[in-house]
């Protein structure tokens, strides 16, 4: 591992899917780190590769997927090289996952207590009685009322929000080092979503899990993430701390995403939609994949792929706009407003930072 604080290091990952139409280049050279105890949010549209990336961490890729290149280091071992049998020891124990739809990720024919106890019996070798006792503790932890009375209920007897709490209980019962949450609240109402997000934050503090949070809801990201990676067309196009991405974004795609969302203060006028649709990854475009939808595209964007340019020690963006020779452009008004806020936030913090260093 390059950095002892990293739990997972993904390097130069490339994944193709074999389809009748040809090879879909779903993940194109993706690298990122996950640090201990942090929440890393991966945002992007459907088809951007965020779910495929995280499924590769679990060894859960579809049979027609092929990992062309790259490595996923976890505790000094490359997950890609592990056999299915070895993965079964990691999955659910060291790396656990919460899926989007709580109804399809629970077994409808199994009592929920047993579903929570199963990983304990499998991974920790607990006897059924002990495992059920721990499952009961877990039900209390995730806030199911009257857990003693409900431990023998079936999934259909719970509401959507309660089911997602049970899914979280299953994922966390072995105290995994890494929790992957793939759109865990997309199917839920805002009030229930707020409860589930609070619960995840609370549990993260208690058991020091690292979370990879996949979502397309930037509001949720703003509340959950420590760091954010923005994916587009199978690549990470920008990553940084949550403040850097929301208040000092550099990539035109990140601008477009932030700009197309109405906030509760947005007044009339039309929303700034990103025109067009994402490219077909059967035949990814040359250069910056976002160029065709971008108002800020330059000639070089259609010829050569932009490398990552450094914005700060923690913030990088792959756009030619950051090249020293690039013309100065003015981002959309909403982004300018955010950047002004960022500049204002930096000032008062500066002296505090220098104090803590000494």
């Amino acid at each position, binding site marked *: 591992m390059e950095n002892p604080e990293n739990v997972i290091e993904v390097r130069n990952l490339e994944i193709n899917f074999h389809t009748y139409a040809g090879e879909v280049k779903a993940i194109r050279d993706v690298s990122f780190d996950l640090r201990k105890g942090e929440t890393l949010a991966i945002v992007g549209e459907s088809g951007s590769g965020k779910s495929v990336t995280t499924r590769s961490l679990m060894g859960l890729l579809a049979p027609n997927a092929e990992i062309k290149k790259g490595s996923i280091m976890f505790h000094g071992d490359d997950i890609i090289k592990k056999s299915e049998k070895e993965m079964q020891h990691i999955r659910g124990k060291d790396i656990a996952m919460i899926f989007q739809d709580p109804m399809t990720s629970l077994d409808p024919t199994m009592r929920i207590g047993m579903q929570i106890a199963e990983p304990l019996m499998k991974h920790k070798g607990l006897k059924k009685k002990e495992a059920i006792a721990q499952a009961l503790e877990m039900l209390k932890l995730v806030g199911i009322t009257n857990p003693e009375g409900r431990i023998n209920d079936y999934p259909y007897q719970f509401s*959507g929000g309660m089911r997602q709490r049970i899914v979280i209980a299953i994922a966390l019962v072995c105290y995994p080092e890494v929790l992957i949450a793939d759109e865990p609240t997309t199917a839920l109402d805002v009030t229930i979503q707020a409860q589930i997000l609070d619960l995840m934050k609370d549990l993260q503090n208690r058991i020091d899990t690292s979370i990879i949070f996949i979502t397309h809801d*930037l509001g949720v*990201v*703003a509340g959950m993430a420590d760091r954010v990676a923005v994916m587009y067309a199978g690549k990470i196009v920008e990553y940084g701390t949550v*403040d850097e991405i929301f208040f000092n974004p550099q990539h035109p795609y990140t601008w477009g995403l932030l700009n*197309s969302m109405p906030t*509760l203060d947005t007044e009339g006028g039309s929303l700034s939609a990103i025109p067009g649709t994402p490219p077909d990854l059967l035949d990814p475009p040359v250069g910056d994949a976002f160029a065709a939808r971008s108002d800020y595209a330059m000639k070089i964007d259609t010829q050569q792929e932009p490398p990552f340019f450094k914005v700060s020690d923690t913030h990088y963006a792959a756009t030619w706009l950051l090249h020293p020779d690039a013309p100065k452009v003015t981002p959309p008004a909403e982004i300018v407003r955010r950047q002004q806020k960022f500049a204002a936030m930096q000032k008062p913090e500066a002296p505090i930072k220098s104090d803590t260093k000494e």
Partner: protein
Amino acid sequence: MPDERKKILEVHHLKQYFNVGKKDEVRAVDDVSFDIYEGETFGLVGESGSGKTTCGRAIIRLYDPTDGEIIFNGKDISKLKGKKEMHEFRREMQMIFQDPYASLNPRMKVKDIVAEGIDIHGLAKDDADRTKQVEDLLETVGLNKDHSSRYPHEFSGGQRQRIGIARALAVEPKFIIADEPISALDVSIQAQVVNLMKELQVKQNLTYLFIAHDLSMVKYISDRIGVMHYGKILEIGPADEVYGHPLHDYTKSLISAVPVPDPEFERNRKQVAYDETAEMDGKKRRMVEIAPGHFVRAAEDEVAMYTQRAVDAGLITE
């Protein structure tokens, strides 16, 4: 001024019960009243199970309402009988559905999907006219005429929703019920569809009933908003007022739960809890106009409290 505008839809004490008289009777919509003015967008928000979709479906008569009146253009459509009357009514009112994958027949070509209404109502003189109308409609929603001979599976989610909109527009309706039309779409595509709907509204003088749970989008597109919970409307008012100065505790709680794409705001978020039992104390409640055009479902002894809230929020002076 609101009073001078024409009411295109008046819903009076609408009730939609299921399994009436049985043990598992569900009161999905329970005594709901509201008006929609011509040319405006009325947003109906609420959590799943609040009855907002049922309410929309009852209005377009996909259900037979249990009780109440639905007056559309001066005619009570809750009592429509027979095929002919329903036929005429459905030309005036159309619907856009939530799931663009499920609401288009996968075995039909786009031109036949869009032209289904034209065929049923006999709006085309001949084949050439039908083709022309379909092509115009596709262009209106931002697709091109080459798309007309393709099948739904060849389109992305956003494009499919455009096809759904073209189908709804085909019979030149006055009123469109949009039931969560953008919930299944990606963020960048949501804005495209919302912009298209706004543009069409101005061009064709449409009135929308926009049903959604995404509060920030509803606020953006709506002129007025109704907040539903457990089959009842708890608050109705101008969009800015309902969001800026919610009077009912439930609305406050709902708005406080909306995630905002601003990390600084999120760090300081204060979520307001809502006590559901407050509605179930058996008191008689009705919609009371607390501020001009701003109604809250209140019991007699609560009116003073809401009025005070409105005064504090600067909506009214004593």
